[in-house]
């Protein structure tokens, strides 16, 4: 059931109604029922996957916490009898038990993710190798028919984040299995995130919520804004993007630049629109989800961009992969050795660059089981490491030339936008060689005239479409600019009722009339659903 389908709107409308009618202590139970219904409608065969993750993570977390509690009790009870060494030996023994449990939980669930998501990728690479070593078609392995369960990358990460938090002792394990099942399956965030932390989401997910008109209408407004981004902008841009990437041979040179810009706008409107709908639905239910974006296209560097785009994924990789690798015993020893043999400056950086490499490789492959995503991830890594290394040089340059004014900041923002968009061409063409070739044509094919000779109208978009897109993008930029000074919805709320009514009703009509539906268009799946 797509967010953009009528069935989904009906589903949510019925849920809103029931949610505020049933006794409040049943609200979270209702959400669990709704989430499983939502999931079952996507395909009953997927239910087994999410259930296995829920059961195993629930049980593992409880075992880990029980062990930690027993350790605390035992040490307290025998405080005066045990020597320091005995205490340490006991703690180490218990820790290794907990470690075994968490490893089992992580390996099982990452194993499931790896099998359904990466088996065919591994087979394709193996076949490539077999072919390269002269083994004929007879030795080629056949692909497995594995369907990717809805939202598996998102719910697996969310559940494993919880498991690690319990292991670290930063949250208490959820004892009620059904409550935990809701945390893993909460339907608005199931398909494309945000990837919530148990410590944050559990604050409002299980609470009893009375109907609050302002919160409810703010939620609806955010949903509407999300649909505007998705249906009016993203799905319209998609027509152009599909035309451009569908026939790379025909659209080279300046077209690549047009594609970069179109895809940047489409992905932004699609993903942030989807998240607006998600957070909006949660808000109408009185539940607070973490923000996933902070006006990313205003970033002045790639590093800053990655702090502001898909935030919950970035912080997940940082907290659960980057930090543990960077501060593990092996890395600390490696750090010491590097500093001793390579000098402070290089030695200090090398271990961090290595852990970042792992993170960016993982980020790449998380987005999809293909080389273009891996190259995209490592491309980001390379740019980030070069900027990190050259930072002292940049600082000196900035000080020397006093580069800090508005014009320079604007230059940095545009530069970052171009860099991000250029890297994304790997994601766009879905093929590494094609991306490199197309990128090369940017400098060889001299067809800049397509930008003004009317060729743009041959992409399946009319002049009216371009007009709508221009106004739409302008609206996105204006809202983002306004957001720097606080909530836009609060500002509108402070205006007189008639004005508010016209504004929101106008937006509603815009989505209804100018959304990209009907002939030639198809309200499409969200891009991030497939990850």
């Amino acid at each position, binding site marked *: 059931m797509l967010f953009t389908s009528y069935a989904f709107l009906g589903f949510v409308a019925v849920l809103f109604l029931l949610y505020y009618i049933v006794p409040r202590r049943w609200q979270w139970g209702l959400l669990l029922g709704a989430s499983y219904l939502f999931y079952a409608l996507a395909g009953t065969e997927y239910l087994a996957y999410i259930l296995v993750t829920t059961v195993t993570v629930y049980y593992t977390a409880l075992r880990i916490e029980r062990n930690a509690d027993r350790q605390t009790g035992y040490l307290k009870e025998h405080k005066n009898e045990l020597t320091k060494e005995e205490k340490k030996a006991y703690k180490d023994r218990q820790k290794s038990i907990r470690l075994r449990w968490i490893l089992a939980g992580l390996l099982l669930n990452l194993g499931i993710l790896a099998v359904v998501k990466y088996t065919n990728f591994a087979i394709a690479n193996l076949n490539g190798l077999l072919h390269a070593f002269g083994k004929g078609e007879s030795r080629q392995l056949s692909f497995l028919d594995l369907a990717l369960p809805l939202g598996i990358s998102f719910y697996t990460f969310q559940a494993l984040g919880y498991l690690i938090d319990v292991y670290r002792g930063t949250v208490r394990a959820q004892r009620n299995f059904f409550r935990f099942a809701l945390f893993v399956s909460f339907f608005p965030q199931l398909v494309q995130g945000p990837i919530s932390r148990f410590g944050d989401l559990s604050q409002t997910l299980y609470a009893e919520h009375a109907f609050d008109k302002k919160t409810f209408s703010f939620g609806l407004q955010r949903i509407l804004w999300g649909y505007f981004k998705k249906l009016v902008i993203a799905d319209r841009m998609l027509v152009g993007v599909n035309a451009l990437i569908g026939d790379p041979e025909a659209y080279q040179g300046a077209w690549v630049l047009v594609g970069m810009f179109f895809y940047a706008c489409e992905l932004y409107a699609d993903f942030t629109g989807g998240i607006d709908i998600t957070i909006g639905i949660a808000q109408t239910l009185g539940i607070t989800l973490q923000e996933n974006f902070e006006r990313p296209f205003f970033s002045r560097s790639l590093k800053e961009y990655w702090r502001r785009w898909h935030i919950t994924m970035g912080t997940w990789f940082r907290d659960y992969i980057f930090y543990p690798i960077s501060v593990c015993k092996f890395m*600390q020893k490696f750090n010491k050795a590097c500093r001793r043999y390579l000098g402070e400056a290089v030695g200090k950086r090398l*271990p961090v660059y290595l*852990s970042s490499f792992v993170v960016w490789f993982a980020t790449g492959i998380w987005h999809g089981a293909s080389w273009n995503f891996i190259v995209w991830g490592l491309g980001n890594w390379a740019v980030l490491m070069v900027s*990190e290394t050259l930072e002292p040089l940049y600082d000196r340059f900035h000080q020397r030339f006093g580069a800090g004014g508005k014009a320079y900041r604007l230059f940095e923002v545009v530069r970052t936008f171009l860099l991000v968009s250029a890297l994304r061409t790997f994601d766009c063409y879905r093929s590494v060689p094609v991306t490199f070739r197309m990128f090369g044509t940017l400098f060889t094919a001299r067809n800049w005239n397509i930008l003004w000779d009317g060729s743009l109208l041959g992409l399946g978009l009319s002049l009216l479409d371009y007009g709508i897109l221009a106004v739409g993008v302008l609206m996105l930029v204006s809202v983002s600019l306004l957001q720097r000074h606080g909530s836009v919805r609060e500002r509108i709320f402070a205006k007189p009722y008639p004005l508010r009514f016209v504004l929101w009703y106008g937006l509603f009509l815009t989505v209804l009339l100018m959304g990209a539906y009907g002939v030639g268009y198809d309200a499409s799946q969200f891009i991030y659903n497939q990850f």
Partner: protein
Amino acid sequence: MEILQDLHPDVDFETEEHLVDDKILDSFDIVSLIAEINDNFDIAITAKDILPENFNSAQALYELIRRLEEEA
């Protein structure tokens, strides 16, 4: 304090209380900081200790080091 000053000579670590929340220290800074502290104080700051409240100020960091020294 010296380690912190080396990382960001321009920041007043005596008074700053939102080093992580205000994004003065990023993840790279935190990792280099930990490597140096672990080395100098012979303790082991692990991933579970990397919480904003432990790294938001020089004082919080000092308390974390002291706690880990006691536990060691």
